[in-house]
């Protein structure tokens, strides 16, 4: 990002007094959902201020130093250590200018048609058909240089995945990636790209937004949305001291014609709860899905070095939709991909302790892995503690558990066919499998809280969209049913999780929301 644009980002070290601002639109959150909204409104001549709780970090300043601890501290919500209440899910979400796109894998997938149809038929979502989203998908893919990953991008783990899938008769496909030629396949996507090769919001929509006149205040946490007479009027925020992560002591009050909440799938609903937004549907903070991720590890006789190269150049969507027989779950309900974990995270996930764990880590470079995003059926929720901080509740149960077990079996099948000598299940017991005849162990492996943890990369649903105000939080324009001028434009507004990586869906929905808001702008003027 060039110098002139950076000047438009206010960081809290330059703040020394309380502030007030009056703008057309205030956007909370600078991830995929917020960035598209902001740039579209600014391009139409509106004055737009974006507020971001996290810091502003750039490769040009040497901030992306590729260390797991440093980068969790800079980029991740809860510095990478947040979990659900029962610790069964590790909550993975962005907390920096650019949001989760700064640490994402850059897989870029359109919303499946069946999911759009489901949202229309079951939730009454209007004007979001595949046909209506198509121009937005095309625009996003162009802006993000999204292309199927080329062969040279396949690291050893990707090649093993292909070998295993081929031998097991599982079709696989290249995954569309948002990268340009600056990507050096370093393997540090999750630590933020030091090369600007990954096309996160930091290199794509945020510079565009800043060029169109948007201003960003970083280190600025919105405490609540202000509502008066059923209408959103602005927000109250606090600047944070980046060195302590605590409040600096200066507030910001923003008066705005419209308030756009794009604080991410885990955080928008808590913000609305904290703001005491009327919720006649009772659905605010409910219906949390996040594509829980089971993963399995394989010990190979050759080097894998999982942490180098891009994470997933290939994968399979063959099992994306779950199959049921007479209402009984049979198979599927997940994407299946090669996994990538950096060394310390790998150590934390691998089972055991002491000498036994060390014996595994001594072979860390020969460990490969497969991972799945589960298309959740059962849901979680969020509530606030006495300080107004979110507590996320989620327990693996019911059909989700059946899907997890099936996904683990498919992962095992691929890894064993790829030549893994032994499989390591990351459960408390550290269950091992050495051939396909042992797959049934996965039917009983201990998945309870405290035994196995699940990453949660794709939160959605807690401010769900729908036609009926009695059953949903926002309408098909992303506007909160009960509060005029208050919009939610992130995956919280999706009726369910997407069943594929969601960033392209989030951006496409924001394009629709921006266009519809501009059409009706006179209502808010």
């Amino acid at each position: 990002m060039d110098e002139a644009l950076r000047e438009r980002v206010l960081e809290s070290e330059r703040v020394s007094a309380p502030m007030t601002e009056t703008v057309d639109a205030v956007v909370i959150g600078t991830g995929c959902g917020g960035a598209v909204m902001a740039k579209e409104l600014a391009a139409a001549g509106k004055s737009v201020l974006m507020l971001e709780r996290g810091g502003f970090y750039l490769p040009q300043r040497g901030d992306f130093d590729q260390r797991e601890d440093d980068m969790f501290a800079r980029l991740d919500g809860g510095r990478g250590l947040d979990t659900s209440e029962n610790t069964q899910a590790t909550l993975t979400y962005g907390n920096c200018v650019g949001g989760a796109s700064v640490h994402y894998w850059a897989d870029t997938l359109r919303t499946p048609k069946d999911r759009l149809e489901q949202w229309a038929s079951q939730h009454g979502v209007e004007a979001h058909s595949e046909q209506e989203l198509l121009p937005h998908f095309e625009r996003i893919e162009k802006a993000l240089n999204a292309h199927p990953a080329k062969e040279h991008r396949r690291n050893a783990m990707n090649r093993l995945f292909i070998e295993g899938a081929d031998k097991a008769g599982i079709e696989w496909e290249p995954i569309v990636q948002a990268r340009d030629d600056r990507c050096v396949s370093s393997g540090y996507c999750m630590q933020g790209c030091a090369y600007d090769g990954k096309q996160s919001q930091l290199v794509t929509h945020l510079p565009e937004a800043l060029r169109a006149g948007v201003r960003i205040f970083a280190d600025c946490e919105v405490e609540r949305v202000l509502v008066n007479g059923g209408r959103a009027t602005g927000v109250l925020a606090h600047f944070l001291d980046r060195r302590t992560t605590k409040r600096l002591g200066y507030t910001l009050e923003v008066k705005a014609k419209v308030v756009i909440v794009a604080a991410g799938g885990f955080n928008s609903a808590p913000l609305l709860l904290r703001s005491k937004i009327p919720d006649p549907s009772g659905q605010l903070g409910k219906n949390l899905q996040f594509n829980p991720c089971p993963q399995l590890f394989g010990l190979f006789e050759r080097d894998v070095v999982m942490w180098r190269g891009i994470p997933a150049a290939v994968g399979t969507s063959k099992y994306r939709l779950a199959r049921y027989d007479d209402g009984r779950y049979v198979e599927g309900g997940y994407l299946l991909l090669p996994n990538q974990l950096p060394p310390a995270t790998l150590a934390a996930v691998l089972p055991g302790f002491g000498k036994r764990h060390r014996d595994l880590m001594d072979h860390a470079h020969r460990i490969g892995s497969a991972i799945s995003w589960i298309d959740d059926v059962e849901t979680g929720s969020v509530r606030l503690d006495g300080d107004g901080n979110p507590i996320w509740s989620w327990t693996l149960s019911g059909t989700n558990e059946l899907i997890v077990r099936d996904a683990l079996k498919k992962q095992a099948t691929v890894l064993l066919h790829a030549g893994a000598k032994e499989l390591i299940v990351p459960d408390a017991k550290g269950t091992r499998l050495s051939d396909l005849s042992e797959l049934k162990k996965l039917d009983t492996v201990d998945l309870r809280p405290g035994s196995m943890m699940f990453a949660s990369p794709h939160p959605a649903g807690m401010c769900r969209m729908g036609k009926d105000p009695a059953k949903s939080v926002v309408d098909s324009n992303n506007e909160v049913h009960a509060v005029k001028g208050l919009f939610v434009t992130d995956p919280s507004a999706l009726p369910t999780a997407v069943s594929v990586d969601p960033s392209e869906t989030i951006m496409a929905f924001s394009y629709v929301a921006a266009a519809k808001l501009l059409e009706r702008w006179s209502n808010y003027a």
Partner: protein
Amino acid sequence: MRGGGDDHYRSLCPGATPGVLSVKELGVLAALCERVCPPADEAHAGAKVVRVAERIDRELAFHTPRMQSDLKAALLVMEHGGLLHLSATRFTRLAPEAQDARIEAMMTSSSELERQVIGNLRLLSLFFYYVDERTWAAIHYEGPFQPRKAPPADSRLPEAPHG
């Protein structure tokens, strides 16, 4: 049953200055890290040298009061939870093999609380051990391509190597 005054716990983390944790909590954490992280040998630095417990204590300063109190409570369960396993001996007073057996028993316990406690303490210990560059050679990790730049809220110990 031998108890544990501050001297006992201080001896488990000599020279440390606790921040968020008390001396006792830090001592329990240090004792646990000793068992969870690789035993020190010519290839592995070990938890004592890396000072994993102190690192976790410093990290906690940047987290919410709820997270801090959860971790403190977890350390109390770790130290005094033996009764569930028919042992009145504190974790830090057990012999190393008995400590391992206690950890093992907690990991597969029927008590969800015990599983969560050990699951999370184990995870933190291993993560903050393996982010230290002194551990990388043993696991064939060549390290990052970029020079280090400390984040604004840095929880590394000032004297840790900055690889």
